[in-house]
């Protein structure tokens, strides 16, 4: 701290002092760069160069074995003409539209429930809700095939108790995406924890004065809780939308891979799955690169729309940001 005390005194005109100070700052910058060097190298090699090279590849025909040959915007033209691109985008869009609202609503509901419980039981059930999140997505994919099996699966077994004849979740193209969206609810635990932390940060005084004014639970929830945690809800919506657009593991495990003829593939052909197939199964690296850029543009556009909407909907306290 004596260094900081010395600093103002040293800011005089003494040129000798100034030179040493400049030298110190140079040393400081050099030391900083040394600490930053892992990221700088990594950024250049694994981010900056790949971005540039991917953009270049998207304008070429490249199969890894032969050198890339420049074909202009042909890949992008093909993106429009390829019916599977439209299908994959549509599948991904439908899945996102189903999954994100479900996921967010369920995690809010569970967080509110936990917030209502006593300290000990909320701690216990928080753990219970979080545990499935630890399951590797591949295992979730396997579990999906088992639990949602049309004939013998546990889901339809339970639906049967209520006299509901459950659909063939894993084979009926109409039910594959809803099934995957429901399965994804099993791993809401992370969002629940984030929302619960946000709920606990809502000042108690707000509820007390609302109660004095005669507000009931529902009014308190819609007028206090939801606005106060809306930045967190927004965060979860954005992060989940981006993740849903890139969904891969569970659906790929359950519906794709070598020798899979059993299940209806096309209904679960999500965008990143198709991209992966193009790149690493058909070795259409140029085309897959163009696909990646289209995905990037779509995600950016959707995130921008969400940000724009959030300006109107999300409530930020004056002192936050």
């Amino acid at each position, binding site marked *: 701290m004596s260094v900081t005390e010395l600093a103002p005194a040293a800011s005089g005109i003494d040129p000798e002092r100034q030179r040493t100070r400049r030298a110190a700052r140079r040393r400081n910058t050099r030391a900083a760069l040394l*600490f930053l060097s*892992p990221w700088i190298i990594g950024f250049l090699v694994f981010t900056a160069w790949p971005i540039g090279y991917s953009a270049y590849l998207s304008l070429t025909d490249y199969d890894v074995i032969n050198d890339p040959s420049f074909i202009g915007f042909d890949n992008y033209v093909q993106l429009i003409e390829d019916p599977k691109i439209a299908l994959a985008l549509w599948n991904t869009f439908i899945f996102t539209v189903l999954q994100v609202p479900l996921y967010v609503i369920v995690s809010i509901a569970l967080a509110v429930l936990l917030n209502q419980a006593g300290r000990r039981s909320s701690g216990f059930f928080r753990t219970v809700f979080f545990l499935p999140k630890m399951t590797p997505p591949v295992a979730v994919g396997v579990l999906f095939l088992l639990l949602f099996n049309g004939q013998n699966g546990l889901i339809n077994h339970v639906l049967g108790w209520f006299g509901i004849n459950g659909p063939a979740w894993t084979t009926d193209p109409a039910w594959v995406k809803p099934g995957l969206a429901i399965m994804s609810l099993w791993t809401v635990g992370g969002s629940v924890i984030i929302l619960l932390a946000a709920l606990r*940060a809502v000042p108690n005084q707000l509820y007390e004065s609302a109660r004095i004014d005669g507000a009931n639970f529902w009014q308190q929830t819609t007028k206090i809780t939801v606005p106060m945690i809306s930045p*967190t809800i927004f*965060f979860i919506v954005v992060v989940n939308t981006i993740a849903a657009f890139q969904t891969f593991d569970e659906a790929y495990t359950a519906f794709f891979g070598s020798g*899979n003829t*059993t299940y209806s593939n096309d209904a679960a052909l999500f965008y990143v799955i198709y991209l*992966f197939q193009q790149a690493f199964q058909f070795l259409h690296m140029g085309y897959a690169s163009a696909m990646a850029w289209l995905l990037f543009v779509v995600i950016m556009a959707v995130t921008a729309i969400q940000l724009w909407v959030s300006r109107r909907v999300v409530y930020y306290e004056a002192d*936050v940001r």
Partner: protein
Amino acid sequence: MTQQVSRPMGEPVPAPTAAPLGFEAGMRSRAERSSGLEQDAVESEPTAGSKPPQDRQRRRKPLLVRIAVTALLVVFGVVFTYPFIWLVSASFKPRGEVFDNQLIPNTFTLENYVTVWQEAPLALWLWNTLLVTVLAAVTVTISSAMVAWGFSYFQFRGRNALFGFVLATMMLPGAVTMIPTFLIWNGLGATGTLYPLWAGNLFGSAFYIFLLRQFFLGMPRDIFEAARIDGANNWTIFTRIALPLMKPALVVTLLFEAQAAWTDLMRGLIYLRDSDTFTVPRGLKALVDQFGFGGEWHWEILVTASVITTVPMIILFFIGQRSFVEGIATTGSKG
């Protein structure tokens, strides 16, 4: 020198047992900054006793509400745990009974575990995954901590712009860099080896750099200046003072990355060809292709392999439960 360095920081260093508290203190200060209130962002058991009476008042709810809340929690608790219990139970059932939806197997058998062990080089897969997981978690923690320290301790021109770049890379979908990254490893002759699964972590990861920087920024600067006067150089300050104080946040990074590395399927699919080099998720996918889609429908093998893939993660969670929960809560509070 080490002695001298450690003395001025003697006071603020939390005792090993109080490490989680140090973590919480960091988080609480953030919560305070953002909401201007004394409310905890995370549940903090240690302070439970000293809670103001308003909290107790809030908890005194009508009996009916309390019963309803508990009942709902129990129902959801069953919904969330049952799939895994179902999976474990099915792994002890013979082939014909996997789908019988009975909690207790009619015929209890360990045969599936023996079969899986014979059909697949599981021990090798587990070893490969363990190797990748440890290397990925350790390297990303060290490198990200270094970079985060560089961004938080030093002042230099262009710092904020550079940090903006770090944040921007988080927005980039993995698909964009996936192909060129593959070409890099392919060019190095590393396809078919485990290197591509972890070595990228030597260069830090934007998310953890962001997370750790938040914690470094929350630490009192005086300690470091005091150490500097005592003659400690930059590296000593970082390793001897900053890192020990950061232990809780480093544990979070380790755990998060361990989970990410253990469960990673995509890289295994891209880079691994030989069964001998498979990680467990990649191996499990191979088993699905072989025993599920191959037309043989040996679900009992898939069930058992799924259990084996998952159990290490459950163990990991119970080892670091607190850190997981607090780490996730922190992640969200930046929203």
